[in-house]
């Protein structure tokens, strides 16, 4: 710090708080206060109509969660979604990154194209896919062209969630591809040179150098994928017109929370569900951070 400013300590303190003031004010009112009130209101019954009123109900909301069938359906949908989407999008992202990391020409152009879905709004992507999924739509035409079975993508409860999965793999894999690409470029070339001298072939180099070097990034990508899945809302909402249908097949936790809060006006219970969601997400995040730090220490 420049000496001239250092001399005027109190003025430094003053300017420090002047620079921080907008951030501190907004973060207090719209981040810290909401977090604290969520922690309290999750244990209350909240009356929204007319005058807003709160009544402490203890763990009643938590008990209700366990008995709530729709919570279990949303969790089941989320689990199915994690099990299918996360591995496929991770492998796809890695595969694309590996190809783009070779010394072929036109990489930049491909990267720009692949990245297009990531910058398009979820609302537009969902509408485009609903148009493609139409029973008389493009996807069914392509499937029947290759003599594959066609589906009622929008209306069949057994298929609707798959449609959202397909769309999300398509739109998020390129994002993770960019993260992989950055990590691949940081692996020291000397490692590969040493391996070549030792006579390792391409596959051995991949399994003994590339994959282990990428493992913190892979962990990051998987965790981000899981978190993104738990936060899924826009696509389900637009796809099902807000209901989570057909037959609850596209119901997600955030959509359920939204419905309890704004259709049933059951704010306290919705907040209890939010708290559960937050605990799950934070646990996964903290796990990732702990592992990641250990990786760095070694």
């Amino acid at each position, binding site marked *: *710090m*420049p000496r*001239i400013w250092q001399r005027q300590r109190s003025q*430094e303190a003053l*300017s*420090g708080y*002047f*620079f*921080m003031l*907008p*951030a501190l004010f*907004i*973060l207090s*009112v*719209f*981040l810290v*206060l*909401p*977090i604290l*009130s*969520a922690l309290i209101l999750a244990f209350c019954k909240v009356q929204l109509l007319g005058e*807003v009123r709160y009544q402490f109900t203890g763990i009643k909301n938590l008990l209700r969660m366990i008995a709530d069938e729709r919570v279990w359906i949303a969790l089941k949908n989320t689990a199915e979604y994690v099990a299918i989407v996360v591995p496929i999008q991770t492998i796809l992202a890695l595969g694309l990154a590996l*190809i*783009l990391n070779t010394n*072929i020409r036109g990489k930049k152009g*491909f990267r720009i*194209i*692949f990245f*297009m879905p990531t*910058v*398009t*709004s*979820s*609302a*537009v992507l969902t*509408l*485009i896919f609903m*148009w*493609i999924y*139409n029973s008389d739509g*493009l996807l069914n*035409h392509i499937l029947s062209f290759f003599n594959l079975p066609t589906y009622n993508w929008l209306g069949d409860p057994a298929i609707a969630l798959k449609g959202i999965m397909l769309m999300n793999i*398509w739109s998020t894999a390129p994002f993770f591809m*960019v*993260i992989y690409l*950055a990590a691949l470029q940081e692996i020291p070339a000397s490692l590969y040179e040493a391996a070549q001298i030792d006579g390792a072939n391409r596959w051995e180099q991949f399994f003994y150098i590339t994959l282990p070097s990428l493992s913190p990034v892979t962990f990051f990508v998987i965790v981000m994928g899981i*978190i993104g899945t738990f*936060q899924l*809302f*826009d696509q389900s909402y*637009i796809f099902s*017109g807000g209901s989570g249908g057909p037959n609850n097949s596209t119901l997600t936790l*955030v959509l359920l929370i*939204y419905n309890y809060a704004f259709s049933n006006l059951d*704010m306290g219970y*919705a*907040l209890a569900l*939010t708290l559960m*969601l937050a605990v799950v997400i*934070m646990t996964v995040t903290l796990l990732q951070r702990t592992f990641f730090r250990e990786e760095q220490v070694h």
Partner: protein
Amino acid sequence: MTKNSQSNTFLYGLLILYSGVTVIPFLWALSASFKPLAEIASGSIHFIPQQFTFANYQYIFTQEPLFMRWFFNSAVVAIGVTLFNLLFNSMAGYALARIRFPGNQFWFFLIVAVLVVPGQITLLPKFLILKSLGWLNSYAGLIVPSLVNATFIFMMRQFFINFPKELEEAAALDGLSRLETFFKIVLPLAKPALAAQTIFIFMGSWNEFLMPLVVMSDPEMFTLPLGLNAFKGQYISYWNYIMAASMIFTLPALAIYAFFNRYFIQGIAFSGGK
């Protein structure tokens, strides 16, 4: 040599195939936006419209007066949020990186801590706060809670910590105050960080769905994503109109992306590497 070029051909094949998978949905949507309803309903699968028409776009702008309003709302919110974030995040990041004031460490710790908290937990309490302030269905309700962003305060702090100190020392010798130094010397040199921030915040706000859905219930105050959703509900099988509306919404964002794409890549690499 031949083996190498063979494998290159194979890789090119894969890249071109995946490019097709990426681009075809966009092209199919673009194509539908230039087709009359009869051609859409006939279920034909021509990418080039048989009867090319601008009527869908014309219809949206002339028969849907709210559409321009939604575009305007989205622009007001996204531009407002972006400008304030650039200023406030940079100020806070600079203070945390450079100014020694009581509580500096504590506030930094707090900002890192809230980065772990998922946004959903604040959604409903924010709604209650905005309701009690009377800010539902107002621009303030969408703009004010998003005036700063903890992630980018953190990013700007990391940026300013690596910033050369000599310039500020020289400015201090010239008699400039902290404030003058920040606005005249530091901020103009922070352009790359500001560019990355601009794109991420603008796009995030432009595409946001959940928060506007909660804050805005009056159709006059919808942003474009909400408007599109309402539009889809109103014109259920008029895919020609829905796709034209989608394209109007998407093309500005894609244009900005094509222009600034290297900042996207840098910004993401940063978020993955932190």
